[in-house]
């Protein structure tokens, strides 16, 4: 929504703040997609941010235990998944452009490609989990391991949720819907970009 900046006599009669236009969402106005999606994205970032801070706090309390457990993580799998998810983010961004041009088939194609990479991410994660659980790790192992499963598991649940959202917006691929779904999917990307270094790499 853009307002004309030309000063006119009507400036003195601009409707007061109590009667804003229907699309005025305050600080959320102008963000791509539905404003409530951004409320959700903000909440999610707070949750993952707090969890990662908790992990860093735990590491300060028990540096050796965390280091030993972290050494068992598959950094290569984590790195591959980072590439997979980033590429998937590129595909969903292309879908947004196609949706704006009202090209339904192309939009759906790119959304499907994006979702396919999302599935690949989950497959890689499942292989990692299988190895770790096989080695005796569990959600209730405590210390680093509990936080690792909580943070990456919660993120994986968001990938699943993102796949559902991509499916819904592919069914009704208006530009607004696709932008809303893409905003969520990019958040899932962004969170992984924070999770991967903090959980897998930082020593």
């Amino acid at each position, binding site marked *: 929504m853009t307002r004309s900046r030309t000063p006119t006599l009507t400036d003195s009669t601009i409707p007061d703040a109590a009667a*804003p236009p229907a699309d005025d969402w305050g600080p959320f106005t102008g963000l791509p997609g539905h404003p409530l999606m951004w*409320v959700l994205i903000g909440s999610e970032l707070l949750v993952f941010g707090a969890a990662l801070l908790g992990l860093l706090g735990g590491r300060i309390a028990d540096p050796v235990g965390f280091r030993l457990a972290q050494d068992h993580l598959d950094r290569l799998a984590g790195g591959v998944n980072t590439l997979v998810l980033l590429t998937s983010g590129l595909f969903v961004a292309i879908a947004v452009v196609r949706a704006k041009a009202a090209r339904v088939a192309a939009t759906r194609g790119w959304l499907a490609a994006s979702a396919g990479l999302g599935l690949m991410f989950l497959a890689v994660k499942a292989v990692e989990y299988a190895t770790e659980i096989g080695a005796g790790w569990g959600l209730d192992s405590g210390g680093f391991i509990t936080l690792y499963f909580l943070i990456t598991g919660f993120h994986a649940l968001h990938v699943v949720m993102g796949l559902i959202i991509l499916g819904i917006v592919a069914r009704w691929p208006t530009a607004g819907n696709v932008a809303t779904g893409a905003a969520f999917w990019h958040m899932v990307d962004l969170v992984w970009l924070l999770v991967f270094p903090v959980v897998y790499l930082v020593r």
Partner: protein
Amino acid sequence: MKYESQSIAKWYWFVAMALFAVQVTVGVLAGYVYVAPNFLSELLPFNIIRMLHTNALIVWLLLGFFGAAYYLIPEESEREIYSPKLAYLQLVILVIGAGGAVVGYLFRIHEGREFLEQPLWVKLGIIVAALIFLFNISMTVLAGRKTAITNVLLLGLWGIAVFFLFSLYNPANLVLDKMYWWWVVHLWVEGVWELVMASVLAFILLKLTGVDREVVEKWLYVIVATSLFTGVLGTGHHYYWIGTPGYWQWIGSIFSSLEVIPFFAMVVFSFMMVWKGKRDHPNKAALLWSLGCAVLAFFGAGVWGFMHTLHPVNYYTHGTQVTAAHGHLAFFGAYVALNLAIMTYAFPHLLKRSPYNQVLNMASFWVMTSAMAFMTFTLTFAGAVQTHLQRVLGMNFMEVQDQLALFYWMRLGSGIVVVLGALMWLYAMLGPKAASTELAGQAAPAE
């Protein structure tokens, strides 16, 4: 009052007011037992007094919510309540159930599960009444205009009924018993009750400030989204060291720390609405209670809750007077003040008067609020001392209780002042209209 059936609310609220008086009076009694532990110990032991205090509170708050629904749904849906007869039948069932429970408690008949002590027949009566209520209001809403306020209110009220069903499930395993117990207790007060609070507050502010409905609705959606996002998994903050797996410590700490967000949003929302408001509504007392509700809920539920919600903190404070401090201010701020706000707003309409006894009503706000704040500080200090002596230094429980006597005396004093404030409010609402205390501008017809 635009619709005849809105007057159903009046009868719910009369019963609510009576139970409010009982609740605070019994509260003083309980406060006195803290300083004179043998008082009434044979006739009316402390566990029974506490049961009456907490049960009366919950029942009158629920009656207040039911009244609020019967008052605001006709106006929002733009039609009469589907069946006023069913509404009165529901009230009769609830009164019989509540009366039966109280008499039963006096004769030591109860199921002994904190807050859910009601005998089975009372629980079943509550469920029947809830079904009648949900049928009645859902039929009204479905047939009429749908607004964000009624949608959120219905979601909250349906949630209250659904989660109450877990009160019937009482596994023999003590850990599972507590786990599901919180599905009633936590998911009520930190989940679906918040939806009722947000929608009733939105209704009052819409009426008092005249701000566009669209603005109110957007705020409502944000508040509801953040309450459910934080409150549902926030249940985890009750699962520390009760036998549930350790990962709950992280889930509970992270999500419940964010539970302050919807309460903060409600503060910003209410003040923004008043600031942007176009209307100078004559019912200043209702506005004071509404703003007070948002602010006190933020401090009582949000800040005092956060204070002991992180698991490394709660490891020490669990079950101390810190919990009591938080519980008292949270219930007063979020739900007592909300009910007093909607009643203060609606009674002039129900009695077909202009706003009356405004000065006394506002005075009662400050008396009750100051006393509750004093009680909260007192219990917080008691909790800090208790935590240190009992959990850090390892003194035994009763020895520590002796050390807290001074705080318990001060809490008793503040409790007596709360009762005085409550009586002032009840007199302002139900007593004769005092001509001398009218505020300027009351001649204007109230919306």
